[in-house]
């Protein structure tokens, strides 16, 4: 396992340049083009101009750009993401720490929903019959073209506004404050379980249903497509021919085939995580989900440079981390992989 540790260290080191690249891109994009966080907050108030200058100075916006670039970077090295430019004195890290659990929860459940949907319809697209197969195929190819805000609204309409089910699902937020959940980790599912708060757990899960299903429907189609094509390939492969020639029942065979299918798909999941985060932004806006995506949108509008940079760096870092984890999972799935 020593080599695995070495591999992890190496991969972790490789996250650095990609974080740096994204930071640089965002920095350049933000600073080259007009916009000013101070004016964004105070621009239409009768604040005296000297006062504005003073605030700019306090935020370090008067320094040369290269200096701002380097100073922020140095800060990040010390895990200091700076202070928000629009909310005085509030460390960006606090915002990220506040919002991240929400995004993580949505991402995890959206991911689960998409995997379940993707696997089921991917298999149906290969092994199903008649209309089921056609439908699964159609979903696999076009499902991801459902525009998230749109499908989200439709789900809201169908499950919350004019519910077709005997009950109605919540349409916004992560939790009803009335359930009185004591926060420990910020992940409400985890919190409600460790504090043994069953009503809170139910409430939190109910809040998660529509957003994660929305995300799941859209992202699941990408998995369905992958499962479909890889499964077909595996089913046509010598491996399956071998199983079949030994008289292994179809259901067992499908299981083995699926396992072989998952190997290439798992690698794809690392990349999919980015799409998941992207989809999460639209989902977050649609379902008032207080995650990092909405945070980023808010702060872009206000030109909160430090916050935008912080979130982007954090995203880039998370993406790197996830792809690392995926690689490790990959090794567990495939005995051939050596690091």
């Amino acid at each position, binding site marked *: 396992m020593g080599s695995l540790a070495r591999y992890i260290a190496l991969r972790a080191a490789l996250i650095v340049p990609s974080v740096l690249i994204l930071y640089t891109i965002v920095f350049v994009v933000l600073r080259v083009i007009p916009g000013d966080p101070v004016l964004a907050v105070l621009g239409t108030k009768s604040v005296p101009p000297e006062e504005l200058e003073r605030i700019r100075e306090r935020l370090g916006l008067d320094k040369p750009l290269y200096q701002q670039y380097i100073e922020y970077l140095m800060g990040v090295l010390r895990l200091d993401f700076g202070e928000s430019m629009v909310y005085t004195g509030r460390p960006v890290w606090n915002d990220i720490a506040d919002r991240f659990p929400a995004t993580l929860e949505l991402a995890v459940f959206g991911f689960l929903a998409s995997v379940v949907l993707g696997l089921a319809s991917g298999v149906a697209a290969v092994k199903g019959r008649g209309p089921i197969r056609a439908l699964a195929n159609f979903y696999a190819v*076009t499902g991801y073209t*459902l525009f*998230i*805000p*749109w499908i989200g609204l439709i789900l809201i309409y169908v499950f919350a506004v004019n519910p077709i089910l005997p009950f109605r699902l919540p349409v916004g937020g992560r939790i009803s404050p009335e359930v009185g959940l004591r926060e420990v980790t910020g992940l409400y599912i985890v919190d409600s379980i460790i504090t043994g708060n069953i009503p809170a757990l139910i409430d939190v899960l109910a809040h998660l249903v529509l957003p994660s299903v929305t995300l799941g429907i859209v992202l699941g189609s990408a998995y369905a497509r992958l499962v479909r094509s890889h499964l077909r390939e595996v089913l046509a492969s010598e491996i399956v021919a071998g199983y079949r020639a030994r008289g292994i029942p179809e259901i067992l065979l499908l299981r083995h085939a699926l396992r072989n299918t998952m190997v290439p798909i798992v690698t794809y999941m690392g990349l999919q995580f*980015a799409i998941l985060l992207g989809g999460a932004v639209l989902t977050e806006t649609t379902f008032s989900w207080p995650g990092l995506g909405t945070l980023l949108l808010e702060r872009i509008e206000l030109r909160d440079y430090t916050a935008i940079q912080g979130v*982007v760096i954090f995203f880039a870092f998370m993406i790197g981390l996830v792809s690392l984890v995926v690689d490790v999972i990959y090794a567990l799935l495939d005995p051939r992989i050596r690091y």
Partner: protein
Amino acid sequence: MAKQAILARPGGLMVTAGLSIILFYVALAVLAPILAPYGPTEVSVPKELAGRPQPPSPEHPFGTNELGYDVLSRIVWGSRVVVQVVALSAVLSMAVGVPLGLVSGYYGGPVDRVLSLVMDSVYAFPGILLAIAVASVLGPSVGNAAISLMVVYVPTYFRMVRARVLELKARPLMESLWTAGLPDHWIILKHILPNVAPTILVVFGLASADAILTEAGLSFFGLVVVYPEADWGLDLYYGKNWLLSGAWWLTLFPGLAITSFAAGFALLGEGLARMMGEERWS
């Protein structure tokens, strides 16, 4: 006969369906002045009704919005924006991504490594966020939206082309071209490019499907055109405000337009991929 043949091939039906959808919307865009029953910002209902959305009716098959604009006409006019942005961004992304991918993949070396790292980093970042960041600093316009999308999709083309070039490079074909004494530029232009072309076509389909959704996301956040210019994403954004008041038509139709247009490209891309991957017994 030729038509039958394409339908019979794997993915043929998809390609045909996809192309039909795409052509339909392109035709809408080109012929908007002829096809649209009303102007995009024409108050086409009596003034006293112009403050509230009116449901579909024979004169307004898709209803009207709260300013009295005809929804169908706005979808027809709006197709111009999407078609332009997506076409422009595809051209731009290809113009940058394909040559870079070809050269980077073919020559390899440190430039390739750096370029790949940059492209991979951008690729791994959520496209919609990147596009929003770029578009919101550039300001809303068709050209700017196309540039924002370009930033997102250049890495897609680059990676696909590069990967395909690497695949080709590992093939005996490349060795036979080298030993035939062909110069590099010739190999790239006359052999690699044509062999990568089908991949580019597939990527074009799939990336454009994605680009339409990203474009819709941008326009949803008002980053493509300035209202009241007709634009699907923006119309959906404003239309959704009326959903709970019962004016479903303001949400349904623009959303359908977005999804069906994107689905057209998805069908095209996937169909092409199937056609190419499964030609075994043609």
